[in-house]
């Protein structure tokens, strides 16, 4: 026990003696007996490093990981990408890993500058002025996007596309229930059908590409939102930004998204990183959620960085703050920045192109199979839906036996789509893997 408490028995005695106490128990003497725990915790005694790792390894062995265990075509908001060795090595630097939120700027220039660079890269991806220093995940970023829109418009209604990821929509429902009214716009042939009258909406939330991989008409959604006096919040895929027009250039007022593809393993869903960007005026000073790093000068007039606009935040404004976010996901944001810098402009383009090539090739092979059809006629990028002649769950079970994670069954989320399977292809998949998969798929749908 107590692997990480350095005190020797002699040191404990010396400190207690200094305090005029006889035992460690005396430290708690002022706490009423009625609430003291007698006999310690009902938790197993401490274990050695090797025993802990053996336990962890056993748990790991009880999983069949998508990455490594299968040839995977699963996407649905979490993607297997190559993780460059340099990104891993730098992200694990303990100066990043074991520092706190950079309140003491003079001791935190490394984290602050890395976040400043991250903010620059994310605003560039989305074609908007300012990105914050990250939020918890894509879902929480979407919630904060709607919160910003509600605060800025002083309205309460948010129109959410049904083609936004179902988990993201559920988080939005949970976290905005006390304050916002949500309306859902349905999916028709893969894309959102907006109502002619959006009423007095605060926000319109559209995904680009959407959860089915389809490319929405973001400019049209922006026009509709703006005509109604609402803000357009775009849930945008950051990998797709290497090929697609930026959501900022298409009229989005706020871009949110999931930054996992850059520098973060699948990790059973977390920790990931919520991307958030918007236009500087009029939104940043009053309503931007989360931490924000700004450039400044030190006392010797050297360039320096510091957390700024903290007057927006909860530790100053308390009940009047526009968000309760305190911690963000700094380490994951730094990983994303390092990965994006490793890619550079040309690498991000190449990454998006490779994903799109793989998806097009896979889709062409799969739709040749009798009974297999595209879920929609709308263009897609690197993720697409298929209608299968047997339930997708059955297809996935059969493919798993052949070593393939064949995608994600959409039936639990979109029963109206029938036997529907969602597949993603990233730069990690080879033509040979796709050919093998297509052959297995043909057998699996019989």
């Amino acid at each position, binding site marked *: 026990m107590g692997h990480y408490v350095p005190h020797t028995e002699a040191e404990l005695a010396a400190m207690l003696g200094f305090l005029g106490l006889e035992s460690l128990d005396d430290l708690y003497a002022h706490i009423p007996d009625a609430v003291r725990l007698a006999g310690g915790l009902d938790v197993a005694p401490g274990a050695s490093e090797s025993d802990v790792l053996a336990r962890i390894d056993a748990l790991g062995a009880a999983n069949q990981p998508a990455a490594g265990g299968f040839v995977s075509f699963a996407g649905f908001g979490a993607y297997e990408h190559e993780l460059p060795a340099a990104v891993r090595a730098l992200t694990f630097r303990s100066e990043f890993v074991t520092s706190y939120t950079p309140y003491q700027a*003079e001791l935190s220039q490394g984290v602050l500058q890395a976040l400043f660079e991250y903010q620059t890269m994310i605003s560039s991806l989305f074609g908007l002025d300012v990105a914050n220093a990250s939020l918890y995940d894509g879902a929480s970023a979407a919630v904060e996007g709607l919160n910003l829109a509600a605060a800025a418009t002083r309205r309460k209604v948010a129109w959410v596309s049904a083609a936004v990821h179902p988990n993201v929509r559920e988080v939005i429902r949970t976290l905005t229930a006390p304050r916002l009214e949500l309306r859902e716009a349905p999916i028709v042939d893969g894309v959102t059908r907006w109502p002619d009258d959006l009423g007095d909406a605060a926000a319109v939330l559209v995904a680009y590409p959407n959860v089915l991989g389809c490319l929405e008409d973001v400019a049209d959604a922006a026009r509709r939102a703006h005509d109604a006096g609402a803000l357009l919040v775009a849930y945008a895929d950051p990998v797709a930004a290497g090929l697609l027009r930026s959501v900022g250039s298409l009229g989005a007022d706020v871009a949110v998204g999931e930054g996992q593809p850059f520098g973060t393993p699948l990790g059973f869903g977390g920790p990931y990183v919520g991307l958030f960007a918007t236009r500087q005026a009029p939104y940043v000073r009053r309503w931007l959620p989360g931490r924000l790093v700004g450039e400044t000068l030190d006392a010797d007039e050297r360039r320096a960085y510091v957390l700024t606009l903290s007057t927006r935040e909860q530790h100053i404004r308390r009940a009047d703050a526009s968000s309760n976010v305190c911690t963000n996901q700094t380490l994951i944001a730094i990983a994303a920045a390092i990965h994006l810098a490793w890619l550079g402009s040309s690498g991000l383009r190449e990454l998006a192109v490779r994903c799109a090539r793989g998806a097009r090739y896979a889709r062409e092979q799969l739709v040749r199979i009798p009974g297999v059809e595209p879920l929609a006629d709308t263009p897609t990028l690197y993720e697409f839906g298929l209608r299968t002649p047997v339930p997708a769950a059955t297809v996935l079970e059969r493919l798993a036996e052949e070593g393939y994670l064949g995608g994600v069954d959409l039936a639990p989320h979109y029963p109206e789509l029938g036997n529907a399977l969602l597949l993603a292809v990233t730069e990690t998949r080879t033509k040979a893997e796709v050919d093998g998969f297509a052959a297995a798929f043909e057998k699996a749908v019989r």
Partner: protein
Amino acid sequence: MSSVPELLTTPNAGRASSAAVIGRDREPVVFELSSPGRRGWSFRATGMPEWDAAELVADAHRNDAPPVLPEVSERDLVAHFTRLTSRNYSVDLGAYPLGSCTMKYNPKLCDVASSVPGLTGVHPAQPAEQTQGWLRLLAELEDVLCRVTGMTAATLQPAAGAQGELTGLLLMRAWHAAQGSVRTKVLIPDSAHGTNPASVTLAGYQTVEVPSDARGLVDLDALRELVDDEIAGLMLTNPNTLGLFETDIVEIARLVHDAGGLLYYDGANLNAILGEVRPGDMGFDIVHMNLHKTFAVPHGGGGPGAGPVAVAARLEEFLPGPRPALDAATNRYVWTTPPRSIGRIHGWHGNALALARAYSYILANGGDGLQRVAEAAVLNARYLKERLRDVFDFPYDEPCMHEFVGSAANVKKATGVKALDLAKRLIEEGFHPPTMYFPLIVDEALMVEPTETESPQTVEAMAQAFERVVAEARADGGAAAHAAPRTTPVSRVDEVLAAKQLRLRWTPE
């Protein structure tokens, strides 16, 4: 000799220099290291047909050029970010007595445990049948967190403490709604962390502040006046943000429960009471934990953390879903969603790899080790506070737990040196400063939390450093403190200028 090509003398491009470390030069922004066309990337050869961008995406959707990003070699990238790490303090470098943040040592074991491919490679949407190891890990972590807190059931979804708070308040709201009772207000002590009232607002409630009494504890008479049938509950940190244990907790719980309210435990300070006192035994109904404090998940420069919420039995049916559960019939783990769930809080299953770190930390320490953690944390704080008795004022002088709050008001009055100046001067002594100006009810507050992983010698060295900087301020009128820090990569930064010019991204000059 021919002249040096201009291309090769661009000030920063591709310059792998340690000047930022040993010369206190400024470190270029990574964009400034760019050389157009340079690249560090490479990809797997896939054999895919080489369709170009125009063949893959219609004009209406395709950008003319990819977003502007740095163009650097991998070597320069590594040099740049390594230089940035050299400009940053961290727990691995030295003591970090930042009050309320529990900056304890983060065992390397947990780094390794959370990096095994069997955990990192799992896709969150894989069927439960393929992820039995993860479900078991999460189920066991829920169980042990309930044992530590004295609660019945838990959700691991919240990604951070503040998200845990909001989750807890939404549970409170759902529970009252199920009782058919409409409640509008949540009580919060005036010493509470700022996230408490902000979360209350987001949950659709109004904050009502409960004053502290002369001891620094909840003012019981004021509380009696405030509890009524409008009160949804009371949020309490215990030990509170002054580092003091709320010794009237049984009476506080009775008052809130008698009024039909629920008692919410903010777990920011759970480290002080592991194995000694459990929130459930104190009468709390809802508990959030900061795994990045108590259970040694590293803070990562400000996240990722994890903020699980544990509840009493009567609130279990409202927890976010899905939750892992062992199916007795098949002896396999499955996902279940509680019948009256408030819904998902997280896009997937919470910050799973951070949860795996906490799980391995708990396994390593065990029940006995966790109790020793709390005892040593309290001992270090109690010792340091006693050592500083003649240096600072202690307006709330009850026995402290794992942290204490001193006031530098006397120093400021005598010398003009503020808590902020002392903190900056302490940096030069080799320590990260304590938390300043919090809680708000203490003038010139310095909140100190040495944590249990600092040796007695380190704690004593901290005491001597505090003594030195205060004595120095009294001797030199604050000259050194006002000029501090002079040993850091940058000297004191201009926060006002940052907010005024609002330069939030790099742009070419």
